[in-house]
């Protein structure tokens, strides 16, 4: 390494600008290729929705020659699609709200109070990560059914909250623990109870963590497939992933419409994610430091 240092030093100062420029071009090119690869299947889905079935049969990989809007219009004017959007929205919003609410409360208790068994409780929550939903799904379905929640969104929402809690708590505890104790003492001097401190200060101070947790819970719920597959058998209660799959198998001959339905169903998660991308990467930065 020492020799390499000596050899590379003199040219470095002269080459650095040129190197960076050509490097930037190569990277830009690689980035373009990569993005093309990542987006081609998505583009296929979206563009396919604008084609007619006969076009797709004749030339499956072609671009739309005549743009057929009617596939999208048909989907957007059908009650089925909007009912599923509504179901998915209810499930995702409720899951997110309760996950963040319960998670924040528990994380506050675990990080700002000292009591016997705190470590055990925290370990219990983190151990939840070793119990993925796949393992629990069969008894979970029976449990939900016996509670009378089968075929209802509540039957999807409550287990989703339960399975989202471990990492919510894991992300939020360090955020809350990092709030200086002096702040709490100052609030106490001003006559603020610990719970009052929670409502007035903690929410605002842990906002980055809360946003990260909320986005992840929302997207996980929006895309959730296995749990609704077990719980929801009644089409009126279908969420978008189930509905999309049902639509795809029912109208399997109408490829164009399936593609239109599919592309419309992915829009909300995409919009949501692109709005908050920076937050997610930022919020994870604290979490992945080993």
């Amino acid at each position, binding site marked *: *390494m020492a020799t*390499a240092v000596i050899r590379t030093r003199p040219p*470095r100062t002269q080459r650095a600008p040129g*190197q960076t420029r050509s490097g*930037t071009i190569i*990277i830009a090119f690689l980035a373009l290729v*990569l*993005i093309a690869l*990542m987006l081609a*299947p998505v583009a*296929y*889905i979206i563009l396919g929705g604008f084609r007619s079935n006969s076009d797709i049969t004749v030339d499956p*990989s072609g671009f739309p020659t005549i743009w057929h809007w009617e596939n999208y219009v048909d989907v957007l004017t059908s009650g089925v699609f909007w009912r599923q959007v509504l179901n998915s929205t209810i499930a995702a919003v409720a899951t997110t709200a309760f996950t963040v609410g319960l998670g924040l*409360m528990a994380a*506050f208790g*675990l990080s700002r*109070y*000292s*009591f016997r068994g705190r*470590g055990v*409780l*925290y370990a219990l929550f*983190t151990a939840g*990560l070793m*119990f993925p*939903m*796949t393992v629990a799904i*069969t008894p979970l379905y029976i*449990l939900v059914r016996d509670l009378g929640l089968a075929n209802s969104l509540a039957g999807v929402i409550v287990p989703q909250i339960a*399975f989202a*809690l*471990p*990492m919510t708590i*894991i992300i939020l505890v360090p*955020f809350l*623990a*990092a*709030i*200086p104790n002096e702040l709490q003492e100052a609030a106490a001097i001003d006559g603020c109870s*610990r719970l009052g401190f929670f409502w007035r200060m903690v929410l605002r101070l842990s906002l980055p963590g809360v946003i990260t947790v909320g986005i*992840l819970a929302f*997207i996980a719920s*929006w*895309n959730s497939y*296995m749990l609704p597959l077990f719980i929801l058998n009644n089409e009126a209660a279908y969420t978008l*992933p189930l509905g999309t*799959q049902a639509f795809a198998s029912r109208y399997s001959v109408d490829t164009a419409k399936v593609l239109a339905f599919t592309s419309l*169903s*992915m829009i909300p998660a*995409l919009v949501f*994610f*692109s709005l908050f991308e*920076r937050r997610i*990467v930022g919020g*994870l*930065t604290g*979490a*992945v*430091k*080993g």
Partner: protein
Amino acid sequence: MATVREMAQSTDNAPGMPGSDGGVQTQPPSGQPPAGRSTSGRRRRRGIGWAARAELLILIGPALVVFLAFVILPVILAAYYGFFSWNGFGTPTKFVGLRNYFTILTDPAFHEAVGHNFFIVIMSLVLQGPVALVLALLLNRKMRFQSLIRVLIFVPYVISEVVVGIGWSLMLQSEGALNGLLEKLGLGALQADWLADPALAIWTLMAIITWKYVGFAIILFLAGLQGIPDELAEAAAIDGASYWQVQRYIVLPLLGPTIRIWAFLSIIGSLQLFDLVWIIWGQYVSSTAGTSTMATYMVSNGRGAGSYGYGSAVAVVLFLISLAVALVYQRFVLRRDTAGALTHRPTAEPTTDSTTDEGKS
């Protein structure tokens, strides 16, 4: 596959989880002012009053009840149901002892599924790791449209498994877009039955998995890279290190913990793989196409066949396999990351040469 994404958040669980007795406060996230750590972390007020107890009950109680009832209880129930032959109605009465487990462990279909799972585990690491690492290093510098590029790369990761499954199965069917495109490019000889050919199907699955989840690895790596101070790279550059030398000898070792945690999450996710296979291949085709996994075996032979006892037993086996892999991984790979947080004597560490080569850089 919600679990993978969810588990992404577990990333700091590795230092905190095993035997973490209040290990929380000792691990504040980087970039946080360290002020809170020493004060709040070292608070020792053992005897707390009734008011505080009531507060704690209000704060932690609801989360704990939901968690115990819907995460822990089902897993315990699975272990219980696994000893019964049961159609899911009424209370299980037909106790069969270990017969379910015996059937599972001697079923060639299950052996196949396990084989596929481990193939997917290995290939996911081999395919996604290096690609994601190079891309994360490239994307970590300031560039125009940085945010846009990142969002576009993450698109496959964010869209649901159902969308991915439907889109890819339409593209890959024998009259689909990929074969059409190959024809147009004059590569008609490469046309294949991507989904149905048993020799190809698992590779097709791997391609789709890589496409879908490489973004997740990139996100994690980028997040890890942000935690590495620029000063280190600058200092090395002043000493004459080239760009790639900086990456190799400074960034990569510092990214080690992130990479190892990503690998852990990837392994667990691969062992639990269900959604994509179920959507693209369905219940019956996946076994003939050679893409069945333990989870699809569980669902089709459990709920699909109305044998909830058997399905529960498969869940237990799946859990034990995942747990065994996780423990082995934690013991041998994550050990150096968790050495500080665990009760393992850190003095034993320097004797292994694996840690020393990292400490050097």
